């Protein structure tokens, strides 16, 4: 039977090999949760100041508002009384094509493609050429991945991430800079405002992560909000969520068939 290769690791005499390191000898006690998440995806250890950016992103994307529908789903599932049921119900949202990790990955990939175009056209350093190339890119891109901002003018998570990057002196990093040049053009030409998904993608590209890695990692960065709502929802077991109120249901199908009639 052909073996399946793994670089993630395996157990070995009281310790675990993990991407060439030893879990207890090298990592335990020396790595944060965010750092371990990146390492477990990529096999690369980020510098502490890079890990801090991930913590910033997670904090800025921590939505405490229970009326946001993905978090309602977490509460709905958790109304069974089991936090993890609610947690998984919320997490299912992250696997969607429209929002979630796929959207974050697609946004990061779009930035990578844009940069490749700018390099190819030698437009990275010439401001005029660059703006024209970005506009052309936006106008001709087949399926723009950004989901925009719903029910408010500005995505507060973007504002938060932007402020955190500025405080850490990281606003001038190449991918964030390119994104900040792209987003106003995206707004002007497509009417799409920058969302947190775009901001997460840009911020993580500056950490040296690849779009696919960013997509997977973002699932971790977005976890705490689901945990918060799922846990409280499971403790509350709200009757209103466990049983749909009859006034919320309107039946529009044919008259109900009486099963006992069939026997007559």
């Amino acid at each position, binding site marked *: 039977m052909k073996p399946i290769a793994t670089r993630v690791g395996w157990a070995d005499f009281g310790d675990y090999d993990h991407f060439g390191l030893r879990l207890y000898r090298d990592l335990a006690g020396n790595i944060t949760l965010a750092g371990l998440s990146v390492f477990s995806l990529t096999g690369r250890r980020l510098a502490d100041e890079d890990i801090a950016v991930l913590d910033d992103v997670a904090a800025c994307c921590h939505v405490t508002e*229970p*009326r946001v*529908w993905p978090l309602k*789903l977490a509460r*709905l599932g958790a109304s069974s009384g089991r936090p993890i049921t609610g947690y998984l119900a919320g997490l299912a949202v992250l696997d*969607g094509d429209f*929002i979630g990790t796929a959207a974050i990955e697609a946004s990061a990939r779009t930035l990578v493609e844009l940069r490749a175009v700018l390099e190819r056209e030698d437009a990275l350093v010439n401001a005029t050429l660059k703006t024209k190339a970005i506009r052309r890119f936006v106008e001709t891109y087949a399926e723009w991945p950004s989901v925009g901002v719903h029910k408010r003018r500005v995505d507060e998570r973007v504002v938060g991430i932007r402020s955190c990057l500025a405080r850490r002196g990281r606003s001038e990093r190449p991918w964030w800079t390119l994104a900040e040049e792209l987003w106003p053009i995206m707004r002007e030409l497509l009417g799409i405002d920058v969302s947190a998904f775009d901001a997460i993608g840009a911020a993580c590209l500056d950490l040296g992560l690849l779009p696919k890695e960013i997509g997977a990692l973002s699932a971790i960065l977005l976890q705490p909000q689901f945990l918060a709502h799922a846990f409280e929802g499971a403790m509350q077991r*709200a009757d209103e969520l466990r049983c749909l109120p009859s006034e919320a249901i309107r039946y529009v199908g044919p008259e109900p068939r009486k099963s*006992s009639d069939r026997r007559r």
Partner: protein
Amino acid sequence: MLPPSLKATDDASVHAVSELARALEGILDVPLLAQQPRRDVALLAVLSACGIETEMQLVSVVALARLVSAIAESRGRHPVAFGDYPTVSTPPFVYEEP
């Protein structure tokens, strides 16, 4: 005797269970249905009378049966239209400072 906590307390449930008992006349004998059980209790009694008794069997039957209505419900909406679904129109939330 069925404990009071397992008895139907509303007219709709009583009616539904009596309809079920009527539908099963001459097909399946489920004595417990005469004791005015709750709907879920009636369901389990009928399944038990059919020989569906272990936890695994009961969970499987109920899950499969509910899947049918879940699929039917999902047909009526396009994917990710969660905002349209009334269950997502939750009661108002109120924030309380700890």
